[in-house]
């Protein structure tokens, strides 16, 4: 079937088997391999993307659900399209060593941006609770939590400007 949606700010139309999940569509058909698949039980969160502004696990979302919707992946997270500027949350992860192997990172970033958008004044407990659906095996979470708090603060500061 043919579906049309906005992908990282650009209108996109694709032919897709209805049983394809969104992570697979992104990775296999659209060559956007930043969205990762780390499990088969919707536990790990490596595949989190934003559907109409809300974080969803793209491994359990079927492609037809995208029709008419707006999708944001990690590739679309940075500043202006084509620019090398990173999103404040990406900058915060780099600054605070919030990643090691990088595999969970795209999902962490997408969840983190959604958390910061939803609640401007995040606490450490908010962040830890909010990241329950994202597993990281490398960092022990500490620097991720620090990064999310710093990234959220930077997002707020940017909004205030």
């Amino acid at each position, binding site marked *: 079937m043919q579906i049309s949606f906005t992908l990282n700010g650009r209108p996109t139309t694709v032919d897709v088997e209805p049983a394809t999940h969104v992570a697979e569509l992104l*990775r296999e058909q659209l060559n*956007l*391999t*930043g*969205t*990762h*698949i*780390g*499990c*088969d*039980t919707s*536990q*790990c969160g*490596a595949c989190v993307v934003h559907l109409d502004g809300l974080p969803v696990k793209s491994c359990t979302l079927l492609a037809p659900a995208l029709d008419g919707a707006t999708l944001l*992946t*990690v*590739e679309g*997270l*940075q500043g202006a399209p084509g620019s090398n500027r*990173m999103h404040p949350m*990406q900058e915060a*992860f*780099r*600054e605070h*060593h919030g*990643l*090691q*192997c*990088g*595999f*969970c*990172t*795209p999902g962490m*970033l997408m969840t983190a941006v959604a958390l910061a958008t939803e609640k401007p004044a995040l606490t*450490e*407990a908010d*962040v*830890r*609770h909010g*990241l*329950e659906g*994202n*597993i*990281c*095996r*490398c*960092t*022990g*979470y*500490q*620097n*991720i*939590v620090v990064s999310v708090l710093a990234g959220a603060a930077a997002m707020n500061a940017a909004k205030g400007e």
Partner: protein
Amino acid sequence: MGNVIGIGASPKRKEDQRFLTGRGNYVSDIKRPGMAAGVFVRSPHGHAKLRGIDKSAALAAPGVIAVLTGDDVADDGLGSLPCGWGITDAKGVPMKEPPFPMLAQDKVRFVGDMVAFVIAETSDQANAAAELLTVDYEVLPSVVGVLEAVRPGAPQLFDDVPNNICCDWELGDKAAVETAFRKAAHVAKLSLVNNRLIGNPMEPRAAIAEYEPGTDRFTLWTTSQFPHVVRFLMGALVLNIPQHKLRVVAPDVGGGFGVKQFHYGEEAVITWAAKRVMRPIKWVASRSEGYVSDRHGRDHVTEAELALDETGKFLAFRVKTLANMGGYLSTFGPNIPTNLYGPLLGGVYTTPAIYCNVKVVFTNTVPVDAYRGAGRPEATFVLERIVDVAASEMGLDRVEIRRRNMIPKEGYPYQTPVLVQYDSGDPVGCLDGALVAADVKNFGIRKSESARKGKFRGLGYSTYVEACGLAPSRFAGRLGARGGLYESATVRVHPTGQVTVMIGTHNHGQGHETTFAQIVSEKLGVSFENVDIVFGDTDRVQFGMGTYGSRSLVVGGAALSKATDKVVAKGKKIAAHLLEAAEVDIQFEAGKFSVAGTDRTKTFEEIAGAAYVPHNYPLEVLEPGLEEQAYYDPVNFTYPGGCHIAEVEVDPETGTVTLVNYTAVDDVGTVINPMIVEGQLHGGIVQGVGQALFENAVYDEGSGQLLSGSLMDYCMPRADHMPMMKVATHSTLCTHTPMGVKGCGEVGTIGSPAAVINAVVDALSHLGVTHVDMPATPNRIWRLLQNASLPVAAE
């Protein structure tokens, strides 16, 4: 000279840009023209005879290209998966080493054992065809636990391995230990289980193989921590592919923790199959598939006894362990519970006599091999637990008994009674630092506050030492290693002075691209931005043993340091010619070659340019070019150590253990990048906390089914399980590595399980609890409380 960022600085990581923007290059991201998809058909039984496989329906399914089984492997006369270590028993008899076929032949020995490989145009088609494969199994009883496996009458995995015992290994002076026990004022005894773990790197394993008929070359892309070792083991020992015709690439790899440091059957099957079908083939494991095929870790049952004199001094330590090997010997399998376990039983203490006996046992479970720490967390757990038991039984303070037995700083180098000689350390310094950082003196106040909320609060200590930086090849060879354990690095200086390093270690989260660039920046005085690190490709990197055992900086960094020294030495020769001075008068400092006592200098870039444009160059005595290679084989292991203190709160109503404070003071030698070291400590600690509180791989005895086979059943630590940890380093320098480094990748995982469990036992000690097995889940604690000798209600 430009922007030198050297040893001790914390620049942001070079590798982060691609990971943060979704531009990493993991195996599953790679596509090859004409690529087909492969799936493995795996045994659903723990133990069964393979009576026959009917391929016909699967072969007839849409899109199917081929179905390969163990018979096809046998027809092609291919080898079995090799074990990299051959250990022997006390009498020198070699371990039992049954073959490990890359696809099962005659029998399957664990749930997940591979019986067939189905190749189709798409992964959906391959999966559908796999369902149509008819495998005729004669199901046999399974045995999954080590205690059960060695009992008379237990199911036997191999006809020629009586009682399923691979090797009855021992270490130490048994007679001296017995004598010491006879003189002891007190003997503490402890039986414990070291729970089985599944490593769970977030990236599932994957592989792509391709055969080019025009050049007769194979390429394997694989999620590996050691591509050169895969090339050697698979090419030379399994598939008979000449080394120069086989390229193994391990690009970005999403975490390893040991799980990806073995040569897996999947790699051999897919490479062999790529030539058979003349198509590139891709296989990506699902998480569930990983659970039944990634090598597991730990799984010991142990009885330990510690002999003490009346003052609490340790006289002797005796340990008997049954170690689970699973259904076959994996690459490092038998080395882990023996050579990486027994020699660490001395810990940071002066125990004069130690004896260790390990029975290495086959069972119908996934093969067991190294998982972060590998043998050393198990040794530390036994030792640090029994020290607490002894302190409690003798009425001694837990800190005091440790202090009384610690090797003093001036006691190094220290020869243990179990092979290894520690070169440096300061256990007392680490302990004192941790006591302050953990605010132990105010623990009583915090415990009272918890009690007011109806919670039991406990404090747990663990000290540890580990042997890492694997390894001195001669030493390893005596212990049964079948390969060397050196490392190599090439420093290629370009005509413009920028530098590319080719190194045999593998970066999968440890930040090597940054740390190694700092070493080069410091040693050559070049800009940090002007150094790139290449790894993970046998066509680009000369050779290497890969990354595991906290060895990358210790062994690989040393090779890199040596190679930069050679670059400087050659640069001095060139500079001497250009500056018309004697070579002995040339100094190199901060990126400049100069004639001592003069202002005549040449920059590093000028020397590099002269090396490649040798118009004015000592061609009669020196080759053009500026590229140097070094191999480094360490003279000893390194011995990081430290002290960890955990503080927990137990809710008696639910049995839930909450980790409320965690403090670690670790001696990792010279710290190149403090930010990265801290990250390694955090991650390591949480993996150890996972073992102590959450993680457990559970098999059903009899059927051999893995009951904890998904992230729904196997509890991984999450962000809200952890408090903010306090980590610090208290470094003594390694005396034999070029930069004084000791390694830091595993220390967190080694120190933490005992600290956490000692804290849980402390919290419950007023109820008569003396030991809690891992993981200390709410269910286990709640049951313990129901059976405790005193009422459950908090004070």
